[in-house]
């Protein structure tokens, strides 16, 4: 078991994560009913206010706090108990992050920030919303640096040795996060805050969008990499096999540092102010970041085949039936991975330059991120939650809980399948995202959106309701594991932290040469961004004043 102080830190992070999850999924439930014209909100509540809460609380708050809980537990487990300094700075970071979260959430709730989680200028929220977001990011940096400090202490004590895979991947993800946040910190600190407080009159809109998306794409990899960490390091242990290839796992991760950042223009393919040349260059770079995911797909299936054969699976696919399907920790993550197959394929379509015209800002995109972050990432986190909380609290995870867990992931899968399929098809038909119910004056194109077989807002609402049920069941399991389930006494009642052996004898040392990867990342960032950003600043039109249109 980990040291009590480290466990407490991780548990607080999980606590905040699931509080955000509760409010966020409730917002999701309201959204599907509003879009289907089955719910009218009271005058003091607005669809876009709810949607802002949903995006911020699930995509930013739930994910980030959970990710840190996972990092803290895994770093303490693989590198040893945290020293007092590491603990202190982690707590400071946590408090700063929580303060930012509360501030931003309050602004959303009182209706001063219905600008969605992307807060595109010149929609102008209360300045405190931006301050809240800035504090959130700064807090995450402090926690990140504290964990890197813990890693450096280990490196000093183990000179010349490659770090354990979990620690390596944690540091990779933090490096990625810190470099990514530079963009959002720059725009929030130097553009939004002075403008929202009224210290300057106008804002350079195109620049703010570009800096946001410089951050926005690696943000999705900040969610995905911790899920990949679980796939690479936790799943093999559950399967009873070693990590498929330590060096390839590390290589995949450093490729994410290189290629997940200089690609933000793929979110801006439909807009002016960036020439086709730079858009297409970043499209090409985006395609590079697909390669480490192709590598991951191979490693995962190889794990399964190895494990299944070890358990006596014969023939071409006999191994498949011999996987530990009765193990909730495995099955949950397996389903998460399966959802990522169409999820990733959809991402390739989104990034394919002019194909983006078909899907941009349609419900397809909403379908897409619910089968990337909303299921592969979120369900991996659920799969971790089942054992992580009991592991941290020292409580039992009973058979009843296991059964409930299976029901929970089953419901999530069915709900998500219905909701995301409907959203994908509706999007191809042209139904917009981020849009409350509108019949568009009965235009026949819009009517189509409401009466397909699978493709209508009813399917979406049914799916959303099932999802919400699943979310509540999960929260029940979380509360039981955190506060109620009986404490483990016998050795076999304790829940373990499954972490696979990784044979790093053949792993080349340069993979852990951080300066090399950070240097190359900045080089690529400069190539992809320096000239278009310089143009945006030099040839900027007169700026925009703020608008409050809600």
């Amino acid at each position, binding site marked *: 078991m980990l040291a009590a102080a480290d466990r407490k830190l991780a548990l607080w992070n999980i606590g905040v994560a699931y509080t955000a999850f509760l409010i966020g999924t409730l917002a999701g439930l309201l959204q599907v009913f509003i879009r289907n014209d089955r719910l009218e909100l009271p005058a003091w509540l607005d669809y876009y206010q709810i949607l802002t809460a949903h995006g911020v609380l699930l995509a930013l708050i739930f994910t980030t706090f959970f990710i840190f809980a996972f990092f803290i537990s895994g770093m303490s487990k693989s590198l040893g108990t945290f020293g007092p300094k590491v603990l202190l700075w982690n707590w400071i970071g946590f408090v700063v992050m929580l303060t930012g979260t509360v501030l931003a959430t309050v602004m959303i709730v009182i209706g001063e920030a219905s600008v969605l989680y992307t807060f595109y200028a010149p929609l102008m929220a209360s300045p405190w919303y931006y301050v809240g977001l800035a504090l959130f990011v700064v807090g995450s940096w402090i926690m990140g640096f504290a964990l890197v400090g813990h890693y450096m202490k280990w490196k000093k004590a183990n000179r010349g040795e490659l770090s354990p895979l979990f620690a390596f991947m944690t540091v990779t993800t933090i490096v990625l996060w810190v470099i990514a946040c530079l963009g959002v910190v720059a725009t929030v600190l130097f553009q939004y805050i002075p403008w929202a407080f009224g210290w300057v009159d106008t804002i350079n809109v195109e620049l703010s969008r570009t800096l946001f998306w410089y951050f926005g794409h690696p943000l999705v990899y900040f969610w995905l990499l911790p899920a990949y960490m679980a796939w690479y390091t936790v799943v093999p242990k559950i399967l009873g096999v070693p990590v498929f290839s330590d060096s390839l796992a590390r290589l995949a991760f450093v490729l994410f540092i290189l290629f997940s950042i200089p690609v933000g223009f793929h979110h801006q393919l439909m807009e002016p102010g960036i020439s086709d040349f730079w858009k297409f260059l970043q499209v090409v770079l985006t395609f590079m970041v697909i390669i480490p995911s192709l590598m991951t797909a191979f490693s995962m*299936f190889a794990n399964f*085949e190895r494990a299944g*054969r070890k358990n006596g699976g014969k023939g071409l696919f006999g*191994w498949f039936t011999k996987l530990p399907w009765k193990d909730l920790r495995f099955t949950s993550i397996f389903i998460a991975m399966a959802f990522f197959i169409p999820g990733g*394929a959809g991402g390739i379509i989104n990034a394919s330059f*002019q194909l983006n015209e078909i899907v941009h800002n349609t419900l397809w995109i909403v379908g897409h991120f619910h089968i990337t972050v909303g299921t592969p990432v979120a369900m991996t986190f659920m799969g971790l939650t089942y054992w992580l909380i009991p592991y941290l609290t020292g409580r039992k995870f009973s058979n009843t809980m296991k059964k409930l867990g299976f029901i929970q992931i089953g419901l999530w899968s069915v709900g998500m399948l219905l909701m995301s399929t409907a959203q994908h098809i509706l999007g191809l038909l042209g139904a917009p995202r981020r849009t409350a119910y509108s019949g568009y004056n009965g235009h026949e194109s819009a009517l189509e959106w409401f009466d397909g077989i699978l493709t209508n807002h009813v399917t979406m609402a049914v799916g959303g309701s099932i999802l919400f049920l699943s979310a509540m069941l999960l929260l029940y399991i979380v509360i039981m594991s955190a506060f109620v389930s009986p404490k483990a006494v016998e050795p076999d009642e304790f829940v373990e932290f499954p972490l696979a052996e990784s044979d790093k004898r053949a792993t080349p040392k340069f993979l852990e040469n951080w300066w090399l990867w950070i240097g190359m990342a900045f080089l690529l960032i400069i190539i992809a961004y320096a000239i278009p950003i310089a143009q945006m600043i030099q040839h900027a039109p007169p700026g925009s004043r703020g608008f409050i249109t809600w």
Partner: protein
Amino acid sequence: MTKKKQEHEENLKGTLISVFFVGFVIVAMWVAVYLMYLSQ
């Protein structure tokens, strides 16, 4: 040497077929949307 490596390479035929299933999903979805793009 290379011969020996080949012999020791483990049997991952199922993996190969599985990843090609992934590849099929990618290509099929992409082509479908591309055709839709061309048609409208």
